[in-house]
């Protein structure tokens, strides 16, 4: 069954300050949605709130993935339900190798006694790393420790490929990537496109969308989705910037929750 992901009336706060002011979004498997918008408009907060980052408190709304409300679940349950967030700033964890980490993640989706065999796991991981042009030594490196910005992003995509999620959120996956790395990452994402999987691509540059073609584009301002359209919307934003959107909607300050 194709994944259906429905966000309704999502509000979230950080340290008591409301950043998301009622997000509504519907996605189906096979679709790629892009969320665009200037800095400080709540895009990354949306990603973090959906994943369940402890800093954010969801105050209202639901996020149903195949009818189950993710917001009622712990972070790990959301992941096992099929949500994946490629993070903008992945943590570095010393002493935990990339392979041990990913194997734990895969096994967390399997029943006890049905864990993935080491040899099968290594083969899969090596194959995916090759696709992403990652050095095989990254298998045994400590998780993200000493990785460059680009290496971290590739490692996020590697995890996505290994975990086979239903809904993927890419949070500024293009930031800090040179054009070659961007292409590799985009190829990785495109290879994962399927009728069963939906993507939510968060970016403030249209550049990424040249490589990952969205079906729908949403503009976020002031903690809300203020405008939605097709791929042509992204192109217009690239050509003309965000000012026209602000003018059209009568928005002076597009940011949210920031001190004046």
């Amino acid at each position, binding site marked *: 069954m194709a994944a259906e992901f429905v966000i309704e009336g999502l509000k979230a706060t950080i340290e008591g300050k409301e950043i998301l002011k009622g997000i509504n979004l519907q996605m189906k498997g096979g679709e790629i949605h892009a969320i665009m918008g200037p800095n400080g408009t709540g895009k990354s907060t949306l990603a973090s709130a959906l*994943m*369940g*980052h*402890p800093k954010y408190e969801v105050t209202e709304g639901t996020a149903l993935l195949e009818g189950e409300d993710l917001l009622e679940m*712990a*972070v*790990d349950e*959301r*992941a*096992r339900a099929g949500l*994946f*967030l490629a*993070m903008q700033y*992945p*943590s570095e*964890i*010393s*002493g*935990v190798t990339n392979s*041990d*980490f*990913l194997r*734990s*993640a895969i096994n*967390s*989706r399997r029943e006890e006694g049905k864990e993935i065999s080491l040899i099968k796991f290594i083969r899969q991981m090596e194959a995916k790393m090759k696709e992403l042009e990652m050095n095989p030594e990254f298998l045994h490196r*400590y998780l993200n420790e000493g990785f460059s910005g680009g290496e971290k992003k590739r490692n996020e995509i590697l*995890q996505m490929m290994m*975990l086979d999620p239903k809904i993927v959120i890419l949070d500024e996956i293009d930031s800090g990537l040179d054009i070659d790395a961007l292409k590799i990452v985009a190829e990785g994402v495109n290879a994962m496109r399927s009728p069963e999987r939906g993507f939510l691509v968060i970016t403030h540059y249209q550049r990424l969308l040249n490589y990952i073609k969205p079906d729908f584009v949403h503009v976020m301002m002031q903690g809300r989705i203020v405008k939605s359209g097709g791929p042509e919307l992204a192109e217009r934003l690239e050509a003309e910037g965000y000012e026209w959107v602000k003018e059209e909607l009568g928005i002076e300050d597009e940011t949210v929750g920031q001190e004046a």
Partner: protein
Amino acid sequence: MTTQTILPVDAARISELSQAGGEPVWLKDSRLKALELAAALELPKLEKTRLDRWNINNYGSHKAGASLASLAEAPSSVAALIAGQEEGSLVIQRNSGAVYTHLSPELAAQGVIFTDLATAAKEHGDLVQKHLHKAVLPDEHAIAALHAALWNGGVFLYVPKNVVIDTPLQAILLTDDAEATFVPHILIVADTNSSVTYVDNYVSDKTESGLHNGAVEVFVGAGAKVQYASVHQFGTDTTDITYRRAVVENDGTIEWIVGEMNYGDTASDTKSVLKGNGASSDAKVIAVGSGSQKLNYTTQAQHFGKNTPSDMITRAVMRESATSIINGVTKIEKGATRADGQQTEKVLMLSPKARGDANPILLIDEDDVTAGHAASVGQVNPEQIYYLMSRGISRHDAEKLIIYGFLAPVVSQIPLEGLRNQLQTLVERKLGQ
């Protein structure tokens, strides 16, 4: 403030026990002298730890265990430790005395001595007398004095000149009778250019409070190498006070691997005295504290010889309301030119009630040296937990990964695979996983 040490035993009883055990006169005299010292000495002063408030007076009385005719008769509490050891060199102490000793015939043929210390004192008196209490001195404090007065069972290992032993020799020290005095003394003498690995396990199986007052003395001869691995896994009711000390001659090497996995209050002090030129020391300590344990771990390196490197690493994980004071003392004496003393202490706290203190101390009386230290105390980073959980890993498993990751740099360096796996299992058990 002076606290009068309450002696758990009187001179008459010590003489009586010594006589009954057939001990040489020098040993009886040594015990009596130590008892006198114990009455006059104070408890050791430990950094930020009030030892006088600990349960440290349960010495009990001497109770010899019945010898085991074979390992099959060993108590179930140590069964896992002796599995497959039928052929291996092994000493088992149960409560106040040895119940099993075995030395492989090949090693015996090479002149290796491996038996309980009480037996060695009778059969190899000169060798024992020459070294006993020469590294941990009875006049240091009341605990050391009481140890010297009361020690029982124990282990004696002598490796003759140029003898290199590949297989580890093992000992198990078990207390399962709260009434019994449990004061084992480990004495290892590695003669010139010899090499040996010794592994011991300290285990308790009882529910009343008891005390382990232990001492370890290792004499590393010129060019000799001793690898000493020790795992303490006493239960909640056993207070553990252990002094380990190695004296290392020219170009000798001591390597300590210590797993502090007790469930009760623990004070340990592991010290290498680098006496000779080129002597070296490496100490790795991993510890897990849980419940309401009070813990004080000290590692020390004292450099007298020239060109002496020392390295000490302690990594400790504290959960629930365990409190730990972790001290590292590097002392470089005048004349120890080109000494190099390094130390690292790291504490990871898993709960808001857990406490950890890391105190790196460098005392340097010589200019031509290198020394360094690093210390850190911190909580598990919630961002890291979130990151791992966001991949489907449960909170429990995420914490486990982070904790093992924290211990990994030490655990992965442990050269004995069996010991590495054992420690891994003990860590898991202590973390309630």
